[in-house]
Protein backbone atom coordinates (compact mmCIF):
# COMPACT_ATOMS: atom_id res chain seq x y z
CA UNK A 1 0.00 0.00 0.00
CA UNK A 2 1.40 3.36 -0.98
CA UNK A 3 1.59 6.27 1.42
CA UNK A 4 -0.47 9.39 0.71
CA UNK A 5 2.59 11.37 -0.29
CA UNK A 6 3.73 8.50 -2.51
CA UNK A 7 0.37 8.48 -4.28
CA UNK A 8 0.47 12.24 -4.72
CA UNK A 9 3.96 12.06 -6.20
CA UNK A 10 2.91 9.25 -8.55
CA UNK A 11 -0.14 11.27 -9.63
CA UNK A 12 1.94 14.41 -10.18
CA UNK A 13 4.67 12.61 -12.12
CA UNK A 14 2.27 10.69 -14.33
CA UNK A 15 0.02 13.61 -15.25
CA UNK A 16 2.92 16.05 -15.70
CA UNK A 17 4.59 13.71 -18.20
CA UNK A 18 1.35 12.70 -19.90
CA UNK A 19 0.26 16.31 -20.37
CA UNK A 20 3.35 16.96 -22.48
CA UNK A 21 2.30 14.17 -24.87
CA UNK A 22 -1.38 15.14 -25.11
CA UNK A 23 -1.11 16.17 -28.75
CA UNK A 24 -4.43 17.66 -29.82
CA UNK A 25 -5.84 18.24 -26.34
CA UNK A 26 -6.55 16.43 -23.12
CA UNK A 27 -8.83 13.84 -24.70
CA UNK A 28 -5.88 12.55 -26.72
CA UNK A 29 -4.39 11.28 -23.49
CA UNK A 30 -7.47 9.27 -22.49
CA UNK A 31 -5.97 5.93 -23.65
CA UNK A 32 -2.82 6.58 -21.64
CA UNK A 33 -4.83 7.59 -18.57
CA UNK A 34 -6.85 4.38 -18.87
CA UNK A 35 -3.76 2.24 -19.39
CA UNK A 36 -2.02 3.69 -16.35
CA UNK A 37 -4.92 4.30 -13.93
CA UNK A 38 -6.89 1.12 -14.68
CA UNK A 39 -4.48 -1.46 -16.13
CA UNK A 40 -1.24 -0.63 -14.31
CA UNK A 41 -2.07 1.10 -11.01
CA UNK A 42 -5.61 -0.33 -10.58
CA UNK A 43 -6.76 2.97 -9.15
CA UNK A 44 -10.13 2.61 -10.89
CA UNK A 45 -12.20 -0.09 -12.52
CA UNK A 46 -13.27 0.13 -16.16
CA UNK A 47 -16.72 1.18 -14.99
CA UNK A 48 -15.38 3.93 -12.73
CA UNK A 49 -13.17 5.21 -15.52
CA UNK A 50 -16.10 5.30 -17.96
CA UNK A 51 -18.28 7.05 -15.36
CA UNK A 52 -15.54 9.61 -14.69
CA UNK A 53 -15.24 10.29 -18.41
CA UNK A 54 -19.01 10.71 -18.77
CA UNK A 55 -19.13 13.06 -15.80
CA UNK A 56 -16.22 15.07 -17.18
CA UNK A 57 -18.04 15.47 -20.49
CA UNK A 58 -21.35 16.41 -18.92
CA UNK A 59 -20.07 19.01 -16.47
CA UNK A 60 -19.41 22.54 -17.73
CA UNK A 61 -15.80 23.53 -18.16
CA UNK A 62 -12.79 21.83 -19.68
CA UNK A 63 -12.78 18.14 -20.60
CA UNK A 64 -9.81 17.68 -18.31
CA UNK A 65 -12.12 17.29 -15.34
CA UNK A 66 -11.51 13.54 -15.71
CA UNK A 67 -7.98 14.21 -14.45
CA UNK A 68 -9.42 15.88 -11.34
CA UNK A 69 -11.78 12.95 -10.80
CA UNK A 70 -8.99 10.38 -11.09
CA UNK A 71 -6.87 12.40 -8.64
CA UNK A 72 -9.81 12.64 -6.24
CA UNK A 73 -10.39 8.91 -6.46
CA UNK A 74 -6.75 8.19 -5.61
CA UNK A 75 -6.05 10.70 -2.84
CA UNK A 76 -9.13 12.84 -2.13
CA UNK A 77 -9.07 16.62 -2.44
CA UNK A 78 -5.27 16.77 -2.36
CA UNK A 79 -5.12 14.22 -5.18
CA UNK A 80 -7.61 16.20 -7.24
CA UNK A 81 -5.61 19.40 -6.83
CA UNK A 82 -2.24 17.76 -7.51
CA UNK A 83 -3.48 15.87 -10.59
CA UNK A 84 -5.14 18.97 -12.06
CA UNK A 85 -2.11 21.19 -11.47
CA UNK A 86 0.26 18.55 -12.85
CA UNK A 87 -1.86 18.18 -16.00
CA UNK A 88 -2.33 21.91 -16.61
CA UNK A 89 0.85 23.51 -15.23
CA UNK A 90 3.60 22.23 -17.55
CA UNK A 91 1.46 22.51 -20.68
CA UNK A 92 0.38 26.06 -19.82
CA UNK A 93 4.01 27.14 -19.59
CA UNK A 94 4.87 25.22 -22.75
CA UNK A 95 1.91 26.71 -24.66
CA UNK A 96 2.95 30.20 -23.59
CA UNK A 97 6.56 29.73 -24.72
CA UNK A 98 5.72 27.90 -27.95
CA UNK A 99 2.90 30.33 -28.75
CA UNK A 100 5.24 33.31 -28.56
CA UNK A 101 7.92 31.59 -30.63
CA UNK A 102 5.34 30.36 -33.10
CA UNK A 103 4.21 33.87 -33.98
CA UNK A 104 7.72 34.79 -35.11
CA UNK A 105 8.20 31.75 -37.33
CA UNK A 106 4.80 31.40 -39.00
CA UNK A 107 6.34 31.33 -42.48
CA UNK A 108 9.20 28.99 -41.63
CA UNK A 109 9.23 25.62 -43.36
CA UNK A 110 9.75 23.75 -40.08
CA UNK A 111 6.75 25.54 -38.59
CA UNK A 112 4.49 24.40 -41.42
CA UNK A 113 5.90 20.87 -41.22
CA UNK A 114 5.29 20.82 -37.47
CA UNK A 115 1.66 21.87 -37.88
CA UNK A 116 0.95 19.48 -40.74
CA UNK A 117 2.86 16.61 -39.20
CA UNK A 118 0.90 16.69 -35.95
CA UNK A 119 -2.53 16.55 -37.63
CA UNK A 120 -2.53 12.82 -38.55
CA UNK A 121 -1.11 11.94 -35.12
CA UNK A 122 -3.93 13.89 -33.49
CA UNK A 123 -6.49 12.06 -35.64
CA UNK A 124 -5.05 8.70 -34.64
CA UNK A 125 -5.11 9.66 -30.96
CA UNK A 126 -8.70 10.90 -31.17
CA UNK A 127 -9.80 7.63 -32.76
CA UNK A 128 -7.86 5.73 -30.08
CA UNK A 129 -9.63 7.66 -27.31
CA UNK A 130 -13.01 6.88 -28.83
CA UNK A 131 -12.13 3.19 -29.11
CA UNK A 132 -10.83 2.92 -25.55
CA UNK A 133 -13.85 4.70 -24.06
CA UNK A 134 -16.27 2.61 -26.14
CA UNK A 135 -14.52 -0.59 -25.08
CA UNK A 136 -14.81 0.20 -21.36
CA UNK A 137 -18.30 1.76 -21.45
CA UNK A 138 -20.25 -0.40 -23.88
CA UNK A 139 -21.10 -3.64 -22.12
CA UNK A 140 -24.45 -4.21 -23.82
CA UNK A 141 -25.70 -4.10 -27.38
CA UNK A 142 -27.91 -1.10 -26.49
CA UNK A 143 -24.87 0.88 -25.30
CA UNK A 144 -22.93 -0.10 -28.42
CA UNK A 145 -25.89 0.91 -30.59
CA UNK A 146 -26.08 4.30 -28.85
CA UNK A 147 -22.36 4.85 -29.45
CA UNK A 148 -22.74 3.95 -33.12
CA UNK A 149 -25.85 6.10 -33.54
CA UNK A 150 -24.17 9.08 -31.87
CA UNK A 151 -21.13 8.70 -34.11
CA UNK A 152 -23.35 8.56 -37.22
CA UNK A 153 -25.42 11.56 -36.10
CA UNK A 154 -22.30 13.59 -35.38
CA UNK A 155 -20.66 12.58 -38.67
CA UNK A 156 -23.55 12.79 -41.12
CA UNK A 157 -25.97 15.30 -39.61
CA UNK A 158 -25.71 18.81 -38.22
CA UNK A 159 -27.43 17.97 -34.95
CA UNK A 160 -26.07 19.42 -31.68
CA UNK A 161 -24.52 16.59 -29.59
CA UNK A 162 -26.60 17.63 -26.59
CA UNK A 163 -29.60 15.90 -28.19
CA UNK A 164 -27.66 12.65 -28.28
CA UNK A 165 -26.72 13.14 -24.61
CA UNK A 166 -30.38 13.76 -23.73
CA UNK A 167 -31.62 10.72 -25.67
CA UNK A 168 -28.96 8.48 -24.10
CA UNK A 169 -29.76 9.82 -20.63
CA UNK A 170 -33.44 9.02 -21.15
CA UNK A 171 -32.58 5.47 -22.24
CA UNK A 172 -30.40 5.16 -19.16
CA UNK A 173 -33.21 6.42 -16.91
CA UNK A 174 -35.53 3.88 -18.51
CA UNK A 175 -33.07 1.17 -17.50
CA UNK A 176 -32.27 0.15 -21.06
CA UNK A 177 -28.52 0.74 -20.86
Amino acid at each position, binding site marked *: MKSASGSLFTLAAFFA*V*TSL*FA*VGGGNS*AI*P*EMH*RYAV*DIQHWLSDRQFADSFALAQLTPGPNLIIVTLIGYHVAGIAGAVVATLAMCGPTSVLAFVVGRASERFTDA*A*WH*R*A*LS*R*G*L*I*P*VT*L*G*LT*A*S*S*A*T*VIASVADHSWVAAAITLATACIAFFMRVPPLWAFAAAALLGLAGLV
Partner: protein
Amino acid sequence: MARPLFKGPFKNPAVVAPLIALSTFVAIGILHWPLPLVLLAIVPVSIGAAFLNDGMRR
Protein backbone atom coordinates in the same frame (compact mmCIF):
# COMPACT_ATOMS: atom_id res chain seq x y z
CA MET B 1 18.81 21.13 -60.18
CA ALA B 2 17.29 20.22 -56.87
CA ARG B 3 15.57 16.87 -56.97
CA PRO B 4 13.64 15.15 -54.20
CA LEU B 5 15.70 12.72 -52.18
CA PHE B 6 12.75 10.53 -51.36
CA LYS B 7 10.13 9.15 -53.63
CA GLY B 8 7.41 6.59 -53.17
CA PRO B 9 4.92 7.10 -50.35
CA PHE B 10 6.60 10.27 -49.08
CA LYS B 11 5.66 11.91 -52.35
CA ASN B 12 1.98 11.71 -51.67
CA PRO B 13 0.52 13.22 -48.47
CA ALA B 14 -2.76 11.46 -49.25
CA VAL B 15 -0.94 8.19 -48.48
CA VAL B 16 1.43 9.25 -45.71
CA ALA B 17 -1.01 11.08 -43.43
CA PRO B 18 -3.59 8.26 -43.25
CA LEU B 19 -0.79 5.75 -42.69
CA ILE B 20 0.51 7.76 -39.75
CA ALA B 21 -3.00 8.23 -38.33
CA LEU B 22 -3.64 4.49 -38.69
CA SER B 23 -0.30 3.57 -37.11
CA THR B 24 -1.05 5.85 -34.15
CA PHE B 25 -4.53 4.35 -33.78
CA VAL B 26 -3.28 0.75 -33.90
CA ALA B 27 -0.41 1.39 -31.47
CA ILE B 28 -2.43 3.35 -28.90
CA GLY B 29 -6.05 2.33 -29.39
CA ILE B 30 -5.63 -1.36 -30.21
CA LEU B 31 -2.28 -2.47 -28.82
CA HIS B 32 -2.43 -0.10 -25.81
CA TRP B 33 1.24 0.79 -26.07
CA PRO B 34 2.54 3.64 -23.87
CA LEU B 35 1.69 7.05 -25.31
CA PRO B 36 5.10 8.72 -24.77
CA LEU B 37 7.01 5.91 -26.48
CA VAL B 38 4.65 5.78 -29.45
CA LEU B 39 4.69 9.54 -29.94
CA LEU B 40 8.46 9.71 -29.61
CA ALA B 41 8.63 7.32 -32.56
CA ILE B 42 5.74 8.55 -34.72
CA VAL B 43 5.85 12.33 -34.33
CA PRO B 44 9.36 12.79 -35.79
CA VAL B 45 8.43 10.55 -38.73
CA SER B 46 5.21 12.50 -39.31
CA ILE B 47 6.89 15.88 -39.10
CA GLY B 48 9.76 14.67 -41.29
CA ALA B 49 7.32 13.42 -43.91
CA ALA B 50 5.45 16.73 -43.85
CA PHE B 51 8.76 18.60 -44.18
CA LEU B 52 9.88 16.47 -47.13
CA ASN B 53 6.52 16.80 -48.80
CA ASP B 54 6.52 20.55 -48.31
CA GLY B 55 9.99 20.76 -49.84
CA MET B 56 8.95 18.71 -52.86
CA ARG B 57 5.96 20.90 -53.57
CA ARG B 58 8.07 24.03 -53.75
